[in-house]
């Protein structure tokens, strides 16, 4: 009996210990403070607006995996559009970047340069899809839901439309859209998924935009004044115009472009000379820039603004325009004043190395020291004259290139500024291009006059050109107007036009490593292959490529 009691005692003491000491039932429930649950994020329309703003953030924030210079749209502009184009030169680093300039990486599916655009635009698609999948169940008014839904659809269409530029064949090569299109992921799924055709892809983009435009209308709402990083109905129309243009659906492009720029009149020359770092009246969409949200050395302006970090401290300059292109533009064009061109410095020989080196085209680095110094002084004086009041002066490092730009500025170091994505000028140029292909030459001419003369950029501009001459004029002004804003490579691809860069020996200003011709038919039909990080993890895709 005693033994029995002992055992009972021991047993009950042990059980008791555990019972007494157990923690409360919610002891193990923890939650983070730097994030919120996804149910909350789209749980109310108030929060869903913040998730929309998160998509805008994606377009200008650092993408850590890829490193410096990869902060959303800025990298697309620099690496996918500027570098491989004909008329954007960044000579000092051209030797290192020549494979990108020369479009040699299109089939290198294991490279980050191939993966980035795919990765980045599908991040936008993924965030938009989550909003679209959950917004109907969110708390909030119907009109808020409609506006949010329209905005998410606009973001998604924006991303799909851009993806087509880089990862699909030209429409004209597609056999009416039968060639490989995108992976049309429209929900929150994460599994493997096959490609749609290019035609199906455009159908989806059109569908998203049709729905968005009608929802904007029903909601009766617009984005907050000045929030250019958020979408609205004009943005939807603008993307529609772009998509239609790329699909060679010119009538649609024309009508959408007109709708897109309603309420966004072309800016005047004062605004044009303000440094492209703050929105003007014609910015339909762009990214936010602010000192309190400094992207430090990752932003576009760090490298590509004439008063950015590099231009201020190093010998890189901040990008230069193609010499032949800018020489074709009349000297009295206000836009030409934003480039360091030969006509501004008469009396110097730019071809014999006397006042400018013939490797990079740096003004004042010539063999005749005195003349070279004189040119440098003139160029520096010109930069000073053009400096935007209130902003740091351009090219403080003293390295000014032939064709060097004075278009893009930053308003705080090392690269703080807004960045334009869609401007009304682009819409006018879409109208010109669409009208030209609709055989409506007079309207095309009129569009050019509106862009160049009416706006005051060149008040004396008139256009009577027709046929190929008119077409060349449209292309030249599109290149000039949108230079450095992320269009040039896609334009040449759509135009089926060779990139021809000439070195200094042939009257151009391209570094020797990129002084070459990239035929429109080459470089994998100017199409990046789908990156390995898609195909390796998507079992519906057998082999990458078209």
């Amino acid at each position, binding site marked *: 009996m005693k033994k029995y009691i002992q055992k009972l005692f*021991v047993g009950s003491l*042990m059980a008791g*210990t*555990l019972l007494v*000491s*157990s923690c409360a039932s919610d*002891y*193990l*429930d*923890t*939650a*983070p*403070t730097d*994030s*919120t*649950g996804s*149910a909350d*994020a789209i749980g109310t329309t108030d*929060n869903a607006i*913040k*998730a929309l*703003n*998160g998509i*805008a*953030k*994606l377009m200008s924030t650092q993408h850590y*995996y890829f490193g410096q210079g990869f902060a*959303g749209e800025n990298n697309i502009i620099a690496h996918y559009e500027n570098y491989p184009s004909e008329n954007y030169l960044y000579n*000092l*680093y051209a*030797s*290192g*970047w020549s494979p990108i300039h020369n479009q*040699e990486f299109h*089939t290198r599916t294991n490279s980050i340069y191939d993966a980035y655009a*795919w990765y980045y635009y*599908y*991040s936008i*698609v993924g*965030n938009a*899809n989550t909003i679209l999948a959950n917004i109907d169940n969110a708390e909030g008014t119907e009109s808020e839901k409609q506006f949010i839904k329209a905005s998410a659809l606009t973001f998604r269409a924006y991303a799909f439309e851009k993806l087509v530029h880089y990862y699909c064949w030209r429409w004209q090569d597609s056999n009416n859209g039968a060639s490989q299109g995108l992976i049309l992921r429209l929900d929150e799924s*994460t599994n493997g998924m096959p490609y749609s055709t290019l035609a199906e892809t455009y159908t989806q983009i059109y569908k998203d935009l049709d729905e968005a435009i009608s929802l904007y209308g029903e909601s009766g709402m617009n984005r907050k004044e000045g*929030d250019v*990083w958020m979408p609205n109905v004009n943005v939807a129309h603008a993307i529609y115009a772009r998509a239609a243009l790329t699909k060679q659906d010119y009538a649609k492009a024309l009508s959408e472009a007109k709708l897109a720029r309603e309420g966004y009149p072309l800016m005047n020359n004062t605004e044009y000379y303000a440094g492209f770092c703050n929105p003007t009246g014609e910015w339909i969409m762009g990214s936010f820039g602010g*000192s*309190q*949200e400094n992207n430090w*050395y990752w932003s576009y302006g760090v490298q590509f603004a004439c008063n950015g*970090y590099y231009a201020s*401290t*190093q010998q890189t300059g901040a990008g230069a325009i193609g010499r032949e292109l800018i020489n074709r533009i009349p000297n009295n064009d206000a836009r030409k004043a934003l480039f360091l061109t030969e006509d501004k410095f008469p009396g110097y020989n730019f071809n014999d190395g006397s006042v400018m*080196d013939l*490797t990079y085209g740096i003004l004042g680095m010539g063999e005749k020291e005195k003349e070279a110094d004189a040119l440098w002084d003139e160029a520096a004086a010109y930069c000073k004259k053009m400096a935007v009041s209130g902003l740091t002066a351009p090219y403080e490092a003293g390295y000014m290139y032939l064709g060097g730009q004075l278009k893009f500025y930053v308003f705080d*170091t*090392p690269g703080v500024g807004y960045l334009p994505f869609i401007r009304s000028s682009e819409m006018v140029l879409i109208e010109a291009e669409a009208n030209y292909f609709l055989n409506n030459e007079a309207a095309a001419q009129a569009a050019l006059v509106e862009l160049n003369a009416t706006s005051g950029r060149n008040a004396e501009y008139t256009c009577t050109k027709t046929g190929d001459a008119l077409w060349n004029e449209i292309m030249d002004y599109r290149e000039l107007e949108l230079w450095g804003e992320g269009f040039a490579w896609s334009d040449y691809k759509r135009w089926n036009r060779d990139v021809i860069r000439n070195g200094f020996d042939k009257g151009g200003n391209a570094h020797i490593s990129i002084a070459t011709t990239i035929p429109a038919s080459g470089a*994998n039909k100017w199409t990046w*292959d789908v990156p390995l*990080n898609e195909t390796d*993890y998507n079992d519906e895709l057998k*082999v990458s490529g078209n």
Partner: protein
Amino acid sequence: MQSQEVSIKPTINIVLKPDTETLDEVVVIAYGTAKKESLTGSISVVDNKKIEKRITTSVTGALEGAAPGVQVNNTYGEPGKAPSIRIRGFGTLVSGASEPLYVVDGVPFDGNMAELNSNDIASMSILKDAASAALYGNRAANGVVLITTKSGHATNKPSITLQMNQGIYNRGIPEYDRLDADRWMEASWMAKKYAMMSNKGMSATEAGQYATEHLITESIGRNIYNAADNQLFDANGKLTASRLSGYDDLDWADAIERNGHRQDYNLSASTSGEKYSIYSSIGYLKEKGYVKATDYERYSGRINSTFTPNKWFKGGVNLTGSWTKRNYNDNATGSYYSNPFYITRYMAPVYPVYMHNADGSYQLDENGEKIYDTTSPYLGNRNIAYEMLFNKEESIRNVLGGQAFATITLPLGLSVTVKGDLNNSTSNNKKYDNPKIGDGATNGGRLTSYAYQYRTVTLQQILNWNYQFKEIHNIEAMIAHESYSWERKYTSGMNTGMAVDGNLTMGNFLTNSYFNGSDDEDKTESYLARVKYNYDNRYFIEGSFRRDGSSRFHKDNRWGNFYSVGASWNMKNEAFLEDVEWVDHLKMRASYGEVGNNMGVSYYGHMALYTIDKNGGNPALLKKSLAAPDIKWETTQTVDVAVEGRLFNKLNFQIGYFDKRSKDLLFEVRLPLSAGSYPWQDKVMNLTQYKNIGTVSNRGWEISLNADAIDSKDWKWNIGVDATFLKNEIVKLPDGKDILHGMQNYSEGHSIYEFYTYHFEGVDQLTGTSLYTLDPEQKVKAEEAGALVNINGQDYATATSYAQRKWAGSALPTVYGSISSALSWKNWNLNMLFTYSLGGKTYDGSYSSLMGVSESGAAGSAYHKDILNSWNGAPAGMTETSPNRIDPNGIPRIDYYKSSDLNATSDRWLVSSSYLVFKNLSLSYELPKKWMKNLGIEGLMLNAGVENLFTLTARKGLNPQYSFNGGSDDTYVTARVYNFGLTVKF
């Protein structure tokens, strides 16, 4: 049997013969202590005798070479950094989840190991198998290191020990062999020549001429020779000019390295009596690293006490505190411009640190001092030597820990122990970028200030029961509950625009850039139980059970059950061995157990989350992670069998086999890019989702032998060797599908760190082009891109984008271990320790960078000496159809334009990781006691030692102990430390 207590008994400090393990030893085990003879699992003990010989700031450094089954890396290069440890291989697929659990005085330790003073450590027990570790179920899958601090000695009079160490500290692994300025210039000429041929189609003569004309202006940007820029070379690229005198500042390492200094002072006092024991100590340590501007300073103190006022009550308090200050450089990794190791390694040998005049002499400022070059374009507006003088990165940590326990002894062999441990620490950090040059230059200087507060609370309630009957049946039982909570509060802010020079406080920086912060917590709750039984001290069995809940998993899958069983047989106590004289001890043991791991999941791993940020001044939410409600504990099952003993009164041996199988591995499964990604993730491009997938096994043999080769009155010599043969293998993956991750691939039947990359076939002797195995499916693409070559009927790719990935060997060694020798003659002791590792490969990224060339930005980088052997024209008689057209060991031509393809990531850069390190050499002399007696000194000991005397590797410069997975980096290498010490006991 006496009742077991949780705290540490004074009897642990049994003085052993060097490296000899006896069975009477009491070892610290999970939630208690045990006689070594009763162990059924695999536990290695490192006592303070072993620790004292080593010169380590982090006590875990002393684990290297101390026991089989333990691998140590990242050894002690940066002041204040603790090494990383792996026990019996790699049982998880997630980085950061393979570290063992550290338990200090019975409580999980989450602090910085360097903050524990090695001198306060009495012993470390390494629990390697699941049966030993099972009672630490939730975090024991990677093994457990139990660290026990000293307690008052079982002496009857108070004693004081004073210890002083002085040391010199420099780099223990030499730099790679790199070209000097003249050879480098000639190599650059060749790179220019071949670039003009491959890119511009020039003839060899034209290209050579172009190189002579343009090399300085286009590719180098600096001429330190006594001839004009375009007149440095003859037609064959031989340098004809000579270097201007005065350029003796071309080795940047000289500008940033120094002889470091290490000093360490400890004073400890202890006393004990029948009813109490007290140990107290204070310590001061200062290390100046071998790189400028890096140092570590530590003040530490500890009081451990136990009191036994009466028969039924025992209590104790341990208090510990430390203050540490670290100056460091958190950019000392990867390709940052502010990484001193990156800059010094790759700086071309023609770029000086200081400004020079045209004649090569130094430019001097008004005070006659050399001026740092902060203006030359090829330096990219940076000068690391200058920046290191003016930037500052400082971390100050305060740690205060307290532990208290009370044990009440009840009748019937029962006792109850309650133990609480509270550890508070703060870390205040400051990062200053100067306004003149570098990251802070554009904003007038910037200061980042960030702080962490940590708080860890552990509570244990333990009930023990010991019972013996009929003299031969011994039973011990334990049941307990434990809760653990960890909290972190973080704030961080940055201001720019310094007002007054030299004032590094936030108020002196006028413009706010950001200010943010967040709180985190991590919790577990556990129930545990153990039963041990032995029969006549011959047959031992034990079993344990633990149930754990973790806050990292969803409510429904939060709890995991873990258990173990073990048995041992002390054969020497059997009648048939009692009279066998040559067998001194013999024991067999076997165990099986299951333990868990939740470290592969982030704190809120099961939740779908949106990050909170801002854009345009408004809130912005970004999709960060997907929900994973189904994830649960990773489980590791270990079988462990061993025989150990001592023979001929000379030879100690231990031979064991283990099979450690980790299943339901937690893994971040990569999703296709089209599923969207998260921008603020720097490790993986794809979005990932946690899943329990797959099984990994680590199995192998551990052998440990040591012999008393000489054991006479004056001479004693013990030599020992241990070896661990380890085979790591992925047993199961979902649907058997491979999972690629970078250069490696998870695949069934292969190890987790097995390289899977492009295969370098060799160099085409006609063109000097690198050839890679073609991916047949990419043939058309390769041809279109001009990256296809057919040689003698076989297709090859000349760019890896079209090449096929193949298995290329594992990063893991076949066998690793140590060799030791302990020799003593009278009062002299000479100890040596070598560690080795055989097999396995490292991806030598640094070598690969030194073999590549670039002229981007009109600046070059340093080259490895091997570049002198690169292809330079087709060998005589080589034709298109020559059978030896491909040289598999060739080095491709050096070519600015094609360098990235010629030197692409491939198995060409894999090199053997095998190494032999002379880890420790120490000589000590203890002055005869009779000399001291009159002075009232108990003992006086002098010692001298060297840590990391040398490292032998396949390639000079390679750090074979950088990582376990075969990676490499440009960062700190193991330091060599010369030390002189003096110990006085009163």
